[in-house]
């Protein structure tokens, strides 16, 4: 490689670090504020059905954001992140129902345990790359899925019910009310998004993006690539577990199906629809996905068939995702 092209590569790397497309920053900020305003005011004008959908979109969005940290920013395609979604739900179920801990103890302990499990799994999985990584994450998630079906003390395939929602009585509120629960989900999702945004824009995040672009170069710059990958894997898992906790609270129960590899696939699909390595992409993808899924369930029982076809079409023709395409368009227009 000539010095000139090396220099060019460096500049490319620099701009990637800031934002893949410099001009899109203002546009995405505007989009951010606008969405934020609509989302905050939603309960004042939307129907109960729309709010249910919005809650589902936000939970799915948090899950997909966790996956995006791996796929979009680190370049590791995992087909097993649903195991952490399930572990999050099972974590608070076991903590509150079996051990009798209050929710505010169970939830943090769940996240810490998930982080430790994910670090161990990540240490094994990140020894491989590419399709092998995809296969081994899949195998791990199948292991947890199988365990959840077999284990008797978590009620096997029936799952566990009676998951508590946060106790907000001191504020004079009840989380069982759809509006209050909506704002609870909104707050947690916003915090998760903020955390993710901080991670991606930190020096740690830059190294992750570097790994995605050119792993060998990052390695030769002296970074311990393996540790960064494990870190990304664990962080991704924690965010997925947060989504799992929210999901379990939303439905009041958790069952092994939340860990199936179809759920992992749905998460990956949302990331691709929205656009990888865009911070809001997963939420846009989740919105499209949830709405399409709802519409499909109204017209057909054959969800698998259409899910599969939809998945194939998106991967084949829509690789950049909605926000990726938008960003390219804005770039052309300027």
């Amino acid at each position, binding site marked *: 490689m000539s010095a000139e092209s090396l220099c060019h590569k460096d500049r490319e790397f620099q701009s990637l670090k800031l934002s893949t497309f410099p001009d899109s920053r203002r546009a995405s900020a505007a989009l951010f504020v606008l969405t934020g305003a609509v989302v905050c005011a939603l309960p004042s004008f939307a129907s109960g059905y729309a709010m249910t959908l919005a809650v589902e979109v936000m939970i799915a969005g948090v899950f997909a954001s966790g996956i995006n940290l791996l796929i979009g920013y680190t370049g590791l395609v995992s087909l097993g992140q649903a195991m952490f979604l399930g572990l999050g739900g099972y974590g608070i179920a076991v903590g509150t129902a079996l051990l009798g801990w209050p929710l505010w103890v169970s939830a943090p302990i769940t996240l810490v345990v998930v982080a430790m499990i994910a670090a161990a799994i990540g240490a094994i999985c990140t*020894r491989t790359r590419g*399709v092998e990584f995809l296969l081994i994450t899949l*195998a791990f998630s*199948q292991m947890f899925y199988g365990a959840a079906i077999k284990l008797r003390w978590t009620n096997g395939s029936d799952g566990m019910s009676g998951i508590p929602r946060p106790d907000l009585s001191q504020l004079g509120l009840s989380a069982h009310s759809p509006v209050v629960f909506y704002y609870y989900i909104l707050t947690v999702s916003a915090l998760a998004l903020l955390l993710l945004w901080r991670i991606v824009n930190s020096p740690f995040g830059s190294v992750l993006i570097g790994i995605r672009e050119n792993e060998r170069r990052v390695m030769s710059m002296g970074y311990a690539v393996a540790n960064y990958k494990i870190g990304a894997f664990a962080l991704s898992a924690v965010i997925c577990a947060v989504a799992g906790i929210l999901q379990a609270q939303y439905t009041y129960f958790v069952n092994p199906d939340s860990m199936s590899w179809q759920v992992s*696939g749905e998460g990956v699909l949302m990331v691709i629809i929205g656009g990888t390595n865009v911070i809001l992409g997963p939420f846009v993808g989740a919105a499209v996905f949830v709405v399409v899924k709802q519409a499909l369930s109204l017209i057909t029982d054959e969800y698998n068939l259409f899910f599969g076809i939809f998945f194939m079409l998106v991967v*084949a023709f829509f690789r950049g995702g909605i926000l990726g395409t938008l960003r390219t368009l804005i770039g052309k227009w300027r």
Partner: protein
Amino acid sequence: MQLFLLQFLNGFQLSMLVFLLAVGLTLIFGLMNILNLAHGAFFTMGAYFGLIIAKATGSFWAALLIGPLLPFAAGFVLQFYVLQPLAERGRSTHLDLALLTFGLLFATAGAVEYLYGSSFYSIATPDLLKGRIAFLGIEYPTYRLFIIAAGISVAAALSLVIDRTLIGATLRAGVDNREMVTALGININVLFALVFGFGSALAGFAGVVAAPVMSIYSNMGIGIVVTTFVVVVVGGLGNLKGSFYASLIVGMTDTFSQAFFPEAELFAVYALLIAVMIIRPQGLFGAVGRLA
């Protein structure tokens, strides 16, 4: 001792069934660098098409011969008209293609559910292979011995074709240097599509072979394909001989843990996978991979 022999044969039988799937997956990956997650779909497709043929003709053997033709055609079309053009457009790396086949896996399961519902079906064991054979103090179902024989025959035939024939030589050359094979005047796209179809046909063959001992249902391919993935990772992706040995290791681990340590049944195969990943991430029989 008799119990051990019985379990050994059970393990062997499972190993050979998984091998029929794993070898197709390995062949496709080794040659085209495509991880076909839809491999389980071809297994299901073969079983159902076999079921149709068996019902129409009343013959298991007709089902066994004709059943794999549908997966063959489907695999050929998938590679020639979908995956190959996408790969050529350069937009899709092999990870994208893997994700596309992931969608196909669910689309097929959904389509089968649409056509046949979620009922369970079975193909009757052929008269010739009914009953049991007594040897070494045990009695073993003849059909299960047939599965073992089928697996070994396919392994032997494949190793002969790949090591000793012109087709095999072309394939091996295609793995090593694709451009050079094209320059020698071989239409590599057709060759690849044929191999893809052949790998899919093997999965379909496994589906028909499994039909008398397993139930046929819409999600049958999704369960077994995960075991197959463990096999190809343990054996080293793209390594044909590795896939044979790894099938034996995984099949035996699964069967023996079920028989002697029922509590560990679920974890034994994954524990094996984890151990292999820690000791040799490139697979037990894989060559040392290049970095990045």
